[in-house]
């Protein structure tokens, strides 16, 4: 492992994103627009529905977006031969993965700062815990999305397939994360499944911050998400092989 190479990868990925103005704009603007849409939709209804659903959405953006962006970019690396070339160079597998995680983690931090800023500053989302902790949850969440994206890109041979992994991998997690039906009210089997899906913990952390704001509980959730992300990075590293058949 080498810090020089990890930083080189992260810098290169960020340069690529910066060059792609449309992607950059979508990464930063779309979450703000969607969270505003959610607020507007609930605006005339009684109760604090925005406070209930808003945090879940804030947890989902970084996860979904980074999952998609990473699975497509790494698939491109595999297809164009740049990955093969890098692996004939002094590039460690972890250098490659951590470089990506670092770049997309940084992007997620900016994305989260904007989305949280809009939610709390403009739309009046009530946050009882520290607001910066929302950012921490978002970044860990983004790293999880990146790690899973890297992992699934090994099992896709075309960009079409990579995009199909989104409904296969991500939608079930959204359905079961406790946003639509509280997790303890689900049928036992589904609750058990929900308990082993990382997004459940990310959404929990966000809801905790908005609700009772038990910081110990939030950090426990963040830890669970981080462990999932590390496990996915480890599995992703196993799919990066210097020698291929």
């Amino acid at each position, binding site marked *: 492992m080498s810090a020089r190479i990890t930083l080189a990868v992260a810098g290169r990925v960020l340069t690529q994103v910066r060059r792609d103005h449309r992607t950059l704009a979508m990464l930063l603007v779309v979450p703000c627009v969607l969270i505003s849409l959610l607020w507007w939709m609930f605006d005339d209804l009684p109760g604090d529905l925005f406070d209930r659903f808003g945090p879940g959405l804030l947890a989902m953006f970084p996860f979904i977006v980074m999952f998609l962006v990473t699975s497509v970019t790494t698939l491109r690396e595999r297809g164009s*031969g740049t990955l093969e070339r890098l692996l004939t160079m002094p590039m460690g597998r972890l250098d490659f993965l951590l470089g990506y995680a670092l770049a997309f983690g940084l992007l997620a931090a900016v994305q989260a700062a904007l989305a949280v800023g809009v939610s709390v500053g403009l739309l009046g989302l009530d946050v009882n815990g520290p607001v910066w902790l929302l950012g921490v949850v978002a970044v860990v969440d983004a790293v999880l999305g990146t790690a899973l994206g890297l992992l699934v890109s090994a099992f896709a041979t075309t960009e079409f397939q990579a995009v199909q992994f989104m409904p296969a991998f991500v939608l079930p997690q959204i359905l079961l994360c406790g946003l639509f039906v509280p997790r303890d009210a689900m049928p036992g089997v589904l609750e058990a499944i929900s308990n082993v899906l990382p997004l459940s913990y990310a959404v929990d952390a966000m809801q905790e911050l908005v609700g009772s704001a038990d910081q110990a509980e939030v950090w426990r959730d963040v830890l669970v998400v981080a462990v999932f992300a590390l496990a996915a990075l480890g599995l992703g590293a196993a799919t990066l092989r210097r020698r*291929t058949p």
Partner: protein
Amino acid sequence: MGGGPATFGGQEMWLDHRATGLTHPRPRSTIQRMMKNVVEVRDLVVVRGSREVLPGISLDVQAGVTGLLGPSGCGKTTLMRCLVGAQQVRSGTVEVLGEPAGSAPLRTRVGYVTQAASVYDDLTVAENLRFFARVLGVDPASVDEAIGSVDLSSYRDQVVSRLSGGQRSRVSLAVALLGQPDLLVLDEPTVGLDPVLRRDLWQLFHRIADAGAAVLVSSHVMDEAERCHRLLLMREGQIIADGPPDEIRERTGAADIEQAFLHLVEATS
């Protein structure tokens, strides 16, 4: 030397190199000449899917420009992937510069160009080179040098996706030149290029070889044979001839390497 097609002055270049190479040996080339082989492949077996692509091949590559010639699908790319350590191998040994192919000490000493231009389309020429230079840990100053040697200096700040196919493959070649590797493995670097560009690239390969490196160039175009110091003719995963172009022609009594190839194939079947 008679009989060979006058392919863009390849033969003259070969003679030039001989002359300069012998009278002004540089330190690095002396070291390389003392070493017997840059590449040693012994009984290499590679199976891809259910097909035995390399059924037990043995060969050596020395300093200078070596051409690996053979029809598409004969195993050239697989062999080259073995040399850079990108290919799973069933049995046999591959040694490069005295080390097992693909081992850590070789990763900055071997330059590799795949058939597809393995560079980032959405970065500029200079950004691509700077990135790979950082990965290799070579001096950033070598970036401009590498861009200059493939004659892309006026395109250094262009995004690669806006370049022509030939320019893109030259960007890929420039990456392989970073850090002055001791072995360059080039998989069909001249395919689809115009004659002027092809001539320029072959001149570049010879300049690199003159500086002491070994250059292994694959091609399925037989008329590129005359531009090499030494040829490895390959068919169905086997080397069917090995030697300088004129020697192969003489031995087979053929007018050119294409004829020699046909002659050898008919003789073995």
